[in-house]
């Protein structure tokens, strides 16, 4: 990691090469627990992006005054304070949103992606790079949450975006798609095993895509040689 990293590189790393959900397999506890519908995944994804960006910026801003022996407790303090403040503010000002996100918000503390980025990146980099890194990893994590949530909702309940009004207000009521009406769907996908199987499918898809890309690169290189 050098200071020559462009924002594009930082973004690509967080979203694809070092994706927290699919490559680093970090933060699986909240990822598997709340990815049963697309809206739940989106809600946790948004809250995670907010906390990871704020934590990265603060850690980066304070990095000069941190001592190696004491930095981890300081990171944990910062993360816990942010999550608690966000939860309190949410309960006071966006109570309906809190009713929808209520159980996810405290779960963000358990997300080791945030601690991992604070430790591995933000504590060594300037503030702007730390913000980009937080955004990249937050978006990467949210993308997996949304994909897994959508997959499980589609297979498990035959719908998409059910309950969107909890997150977006009455406007979201019309967004719900009942793709396979009254089917009930494949229950397994909605239950905890469905989370593991769904995540495995996503990881396999990502690996296949990476391999195909690598092969394509090799073929192009070989063609150029001959």
């Amino acid at each position: 990691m050098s200071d020559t990293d462009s924002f594009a590189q930082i973004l690509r790393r967080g979203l694809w090469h070092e994706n927290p959900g699919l490559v680093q397999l970090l933060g699986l506890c909240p990822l598997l627990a709340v990815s049963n519908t697309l809206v739940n995944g989106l809600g946790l994804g948004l809250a995670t992006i907010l906390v990871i960006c704020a934590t990265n910026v603060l850690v980066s801003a304070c990095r000069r005054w941190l001592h190696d022996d004491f930095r981890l407790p300081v990171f944990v303090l910062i993360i816990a304070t942010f999550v608690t403040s966000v939860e309190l503010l949410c309960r006071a000002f966006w109570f309906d949103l809190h009713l929808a996100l209520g159980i996810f918000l405290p779960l963000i503390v358990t997300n080791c992606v945030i601690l991992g980025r604070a430790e591995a990146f933000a504590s060594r980099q300037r503030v702007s790079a730390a913000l980009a890194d937080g955004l990249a990893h937050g978006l990467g994590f949210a993308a997996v949450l949304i994909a897994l949530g959508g997959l499980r909702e589609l297979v498990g309940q035959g719908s998409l975006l059910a309950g969107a009004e909890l997150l977006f207000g009455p406007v979201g009521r019309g967004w719900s798609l009942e793709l396979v009406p009254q089917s009930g769907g494949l229950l397994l996908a909605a239950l905890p095993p469905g989370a593991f199987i769904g995540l495995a499918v996503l990881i396999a898809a990502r690996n296949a895509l990476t391999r195909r890309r690598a092969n394509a690169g090799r073929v192009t290189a070989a063609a150029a040689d001959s």
Partner: protein
Amino acid sequence: MNAHDTQRTTSRRGGALMLIVAAVAAAALLATVNRFTAPRIADNIAAEQLRSLRAVLTPGSFDNAPHRDVITVHDPELLGSDESLPIYRARSGIQPVAAVLTVVAPNGYAGRIRLLVAVGIDGEVKGVRVAEHRETPGLGDRIEARKSGWILGFRGLRTEEPTTDAWTLDRDGGAFDRLTGATITSRAVLGAVRNAVLYFSAHRAEIFPATTESVPLNGAPPSRADNMNPSASNQDSMLAIPSSPHSIAKIHRHPPQDPA
């Protein structure tokens, strides 16, 4: 600024000091946020409570603030929980209208199901909503009003109806439609609602004590006490029923408050 400024100049002592400073700052920030948000959060919770009570009560039938007119009762057998549970009282003027009981169905498919059951003064179910559950998504969670209309089917049920019909699932030979694929959940909710109505019928006089009425009725004939089937017209005599001596409930009374 470059990546090599990661070399830390802070001493161990300075690092420890930084941890203390961070802890104090975090505590101060949280205390401030908490002080600033606490009143709004309390208001929001009260409003949410009122909203959930409005969902089970008949609109326009009451004019008090039922979420502030609370008694706490304890009856593990009929209410399904070892805890003391709140009963909210809806009134219109001085007339009792309905009681909203908090009951627990201990035998759900995935554990306890917490319900709000509104029982009218006439013993009729006014509305039921699920307050908390962990039933299977897509199957048992259709007890939620926003997922299906099943829970609305309790409206209008009374304990006087033949037990074998209205209060029994179709699967068990009764007339109450179960949720397809969620028989255990349906049975648990049905049983809990029925127990709530039975509890209300047995403890009506304690939930709405006659002493809160402006018209004291002395010397009501004892035979009236057995009349558990009052209609709206003989409400007054019904309210004079003395507390049954074999009451299994422990009722803590809070003074009823005037509507806000």
